[in-house]
């Protein structure tokens, strides 16, 4: 079985984000990491690979630096490393088209990814790629298994969780998974070093990046929080709760 795992490199969740001239300054990001939900997808992919004797294809669309992340995935067991340069990529449709084309090019039978990437926190990639592939998609899953020709997966439901069964080419978007990404070892690292990263461009994939109808105007620091407010007495609880909802937007 060919298992495609879609991965994105993002600023480490602990990294400080600085803005200069209306744009997030990527150079100032001290550490780039694999997006956390993608790690669960990768671990699940590795387990599927072991269970089915399959082949794991790690695919990323991103700048040059993202190749490092692919090499890291090879150290834990990815077989094929695919880098799609993100030149000319400016909206969700572009990324999805490129990823879907790569999934096809590498003859994948199943696609695993994170429910959302920790930079844009969008969540469009899994379902969008599924649509372009005419595949089923289940999101917020915590594990994926393969038996008797079908995939089974666990997703949340109103009353707890539910076990969902899917046939054919399917996309699974991971929430926090049931197992953490395994640690590499020196042997894996030595092998990873020898594993080439295949660069596949949009023209290799036959994808035409038509001009986007979304334009980024600017990126800015988040609005300053108002100064702390103190209320004397429990009778203010309701007022504070409505502030939490309407000012702070956290409940």
């Amino acid at each position, binding site marked *: 079985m060919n298992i495609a795992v879609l991965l994105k490199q993002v600023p480490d*969740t602990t990294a400080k*984000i600085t803005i200069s001239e209306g744009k*997030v300054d990527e150079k100032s990001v001290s550490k780039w990491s694999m997006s956390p939900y993608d790690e669960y997808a990768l671990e699940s992919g590795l387990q599927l690979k072991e269970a089915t004797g399959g082949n794991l294809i790690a695919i990323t669309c991103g700048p040059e630096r993202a190749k490092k992340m692919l090499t890291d995935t090879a150290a834990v067991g990815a077989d094929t490393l695919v880098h799609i340069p993100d030149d000319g990529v400016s*909206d*969700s*449709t572009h990324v999805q088209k490129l990823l879907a084309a790569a999934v096809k090019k590498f003859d994948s039978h199943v696609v695993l990814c994170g429910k959302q990437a*920790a*930079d844009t*926190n*969008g*969540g*469009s990639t*899994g*379902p*969008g*790629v*599924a*649509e372009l592939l005419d595949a*089923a*998609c289940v*999101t*917020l899953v915590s594990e994926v298994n393969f038996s008797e020709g079908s995939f*089974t997966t666990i997703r949340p*439901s109103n*009353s*707890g*969780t*539910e*076990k*969902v*069964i*899917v046939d*054919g080419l399917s996309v699974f978007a991971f929430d926090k998974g049931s197992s953490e990404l395994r640690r590499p070892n020196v042997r894996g690292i030595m092998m990873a070093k020898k594993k080439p990263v295949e660069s596949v461009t949009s023209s290799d994939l036959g994808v035409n990046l038509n001009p*986007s*109808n*979304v*334009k*980024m*105007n600017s*990126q*800015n*620091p*988040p*609005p300053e929080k108002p100064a*702390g407010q103190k*209320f*004397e*007495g*429990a*009778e203010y*609880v*309701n007022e*504070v*709760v409505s502030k*939490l*909802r309407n000012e*702070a*937007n*956290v*409940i």
Partner: protein
Amino acid sequence: MDFTIIAETNGDSLHPTTYQLIGAAASMGSNSTVICPNGVGSLEAAKINGVEKVISATGDCFNIFDGGAWASALSSMCGEMILISASPNGREIGSRIAAKKGIPIIQDVVSMTEGITVSRPIYSGKAMESLTISGSAVVTLRPNAFEAALAENDAPINVVNQSADVRIAIQEAINKASERLDVTEADIIISGGRGMGTIENFSHLEEIADTVGAAVGASRAVVDEWGMPHRMQVGQTGKTVTPSLYIAVGISGAIQHLAGMRSSKYILAINKDPDAPIFGVADYGIVATWEDAIPALKSALSDLQS
């Protein structure tokens, strides 16, 4: 510009965010077409101001959530600008409709102005991004970021039967009481300190945690002296947490405690001592005993949930 809104539902009725989606469209001077999947809430939707027409979408595919099938069934009913809630299901349906139509999707938008210019948080809120859309797009709106529309309307309802192939099947429902989250993964944490008096009183905090899906945390005093499990300890020698909302009850705010929670997006402190250092980092402080404040907080929060 015409807006199509795909209603967010909650059991048999509309979810409050549907009112916000409609309110957001109205604030752009637009009337909207509201699609109610499976017909849920269509009568209710017809009463909301700013709704021009309601489409009650019926079909077998709506009996189970399969984003692909729902998108197939709904996408032909949608116009140029499509608004959906940035809930997990909303994001999934929106992404598939966008991909089907070959138009971009912009997720988790918190403001929208003429143009159309939208802004959304990126990097978990460490920055904001402003985008201008020219042409068709799907936009998902963050719940509670927009003013809700009022309900004094009477729009027509069209029933459209449109099903699609469902590709997933539910093999087994696993019922379980939703487990309380761990402090490191929760978006809301309610922590108690020595001011709670006894460990038994933490049940009041647990009740609140269960209504809002929060985790319960503790100061070290509670862990050391009353035997609360160490995994609940927040602070320098406990967990470092960064939830959207941290509620500190009966916690003085010692520097070692602050070290673990001061990066929370918002902090609400409840303490009877107006000079407690916790108020120095709190965005909202209530000077009161927990005995007075917690029951009020509990009822205010459960009112919000329903």
